[in-house]
């Protein structure tokens, strides 16, 4: 019995160590950020807008999925994210209106070049971001990193597992460099189905609308912390 208890405790301990803690969302409170602090803003370029087929993992599966959805991909690749492309200007203006000085950062320092640190309680930041203070003179680092923009359709090998959905995923956070902790953390993960029949080539009007609705929702989420 004692042996079994020991094994159970051991398993729990190892499992706890193996799984990385997940960062929970942190709301921005601009009242806690002094106006004299400079905010470094990095907004990534808009990635290629295209389609993805997760679940079609084998080579032949990927080929089959691409072929079956070629008309959709052709249409999706004509989509423009003109509103998202204005995100840097939009956020800069919002922060300036609130009285902050904004420093535009053109590229992030590679994570491997940042020193490791032990995360503080409540944070998952395991790197020292003081290099941004040294290089750019900023006290806060605000990052908008567009990961995927386009349409995703889930697959189970060769078989589609549902209708395509418009998707926009974006890392969206602000780090207080002195505390090495998040002032704000709210990743954007939008998945939106077409309203009506999606399968209407060649223009796929319902899917097109779903994409631009996703774009508008992403813009609203990017604006929200600074309103």
């Amino acid at each position: 019995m004692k042996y079994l208890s020991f094994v159970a405790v051991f398993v729990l301990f190892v499992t706890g160590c193996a799984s990385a803690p997940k960062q929970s969302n942190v709301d921005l409170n601009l009242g806690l950020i002094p106006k004299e602090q400079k905010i470094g803003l990095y907004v990534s370029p808009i990635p290629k807008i295209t389609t993805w087929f997760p679940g079609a993992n084998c080579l032949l599966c990927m080929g089959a999925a691409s072929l079956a959805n070629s008309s959709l991909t052709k249409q999706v690749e004509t989509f423009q994210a003109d509103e998202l492309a204005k995100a840097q200007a939009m956020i800069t203006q919002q922060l300036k209106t609130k009285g902050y000085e904004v420093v535009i950062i053109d590229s992030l320092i590679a994570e491997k070049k940042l020193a490791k640190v032990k995360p503080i309680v409540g944070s998952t930041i395991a790197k020292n971001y003081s290099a941004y203070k040294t290089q750019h003179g900023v006290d806060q680092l605000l990052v908008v990193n567009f990961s995927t923009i386009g349409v995703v359709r889930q697959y189970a090998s060769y078989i589609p597992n549902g209708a395509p959905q418009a998707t926009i995923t974006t890392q969206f956070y602000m780090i207080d460099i002195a505390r090495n902790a998040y002032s704000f953390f709210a990743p954007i993960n939008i998945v939106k189905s077409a309203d009506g029949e999606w399968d209407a080539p060649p223009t796929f009007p319902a899917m097109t609308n779903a994409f631009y609705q996703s774009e508008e929702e992403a813009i609203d989420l990017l604006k929200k912390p600074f309103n």
Partner: protein
Amino acid sequence: MRFVLWLVCFVPLVSFAKQEELAFDDGSLNVSFDTKQPVTFVGKKSLNVAGQTAAPIMYPADTAGLFLVSILTHAALSGGVQSAKLTREQEEANKVLDPYSSYIANINEIFLAQCANSQSEPAIAHKIQLLFGDKRLENSRWQVHVVPVFAMTQNQSSFLIYNKLTFVDRSLTPKQKKKIKKVKKGHPNPSEKLVVIVSDPVLTNDNADFWLRENAKAFNESIKRLYVESFQMGVSRHFGSLQNSDTKQVTIKYLEDGLKKIERGYVISKTCQRTIFESLAGEIKSVPNLEFSNCSNT
């Protein structure tokens, strides 16, 4: 009688920037209606965040209701569990129309059609021959069948009309008719014009009172205005006098049920208060802009 009708039906007219001569060959347009059916009113389900609509709810189930479902429905409308859910949802959404039921009963297609005839732009009005149910075909090239469906938003701020106009060219020979290709899925049917108009939103503390006071004066005027304007827009669009102002596809943002709705389309005209556009599905839509309440009434 005609004078009484004119007085009763008087509403402001829509004027288009460029009104060109309509392309009627022999000078008349036969307009037919399905007068055996009551005019359909539905309760429109609430929008999701960022403007996705759920399926509209049918009030009486009839021809107009079926077409409304076919143009607005979600992909997964058919099937056991989904259908049962929709029936309960239909009943729930229709409750928004309960205060209006006695006034809805007075709305019939003959009355609306006579309003359209008496109040349409002169270029259209003198060419319209109204056919009431018996479908007599006068000596004219064109016939248009009109099926209007009205909807009310759940916050009772707006009425909407979905007016389907189907144009039949009676001059086509059977051989010519055979040559007309079937319309592909996803492409608009050139002989049909679906006109959707969202009325200016009412911004009061008690929207129902606004619509129903003075014997439902605002309700009746709004319904008539929506019908006349959608009819005019559909006819003008079909005969080429309502053109897109730009070939570039843009994102249109507008108000419906108190929320922002997003749609891609091609602008036909835009004022401070309102945008008229062609949707990606080929519908002609007239909607109040997001900044509608900041515009002065001119």
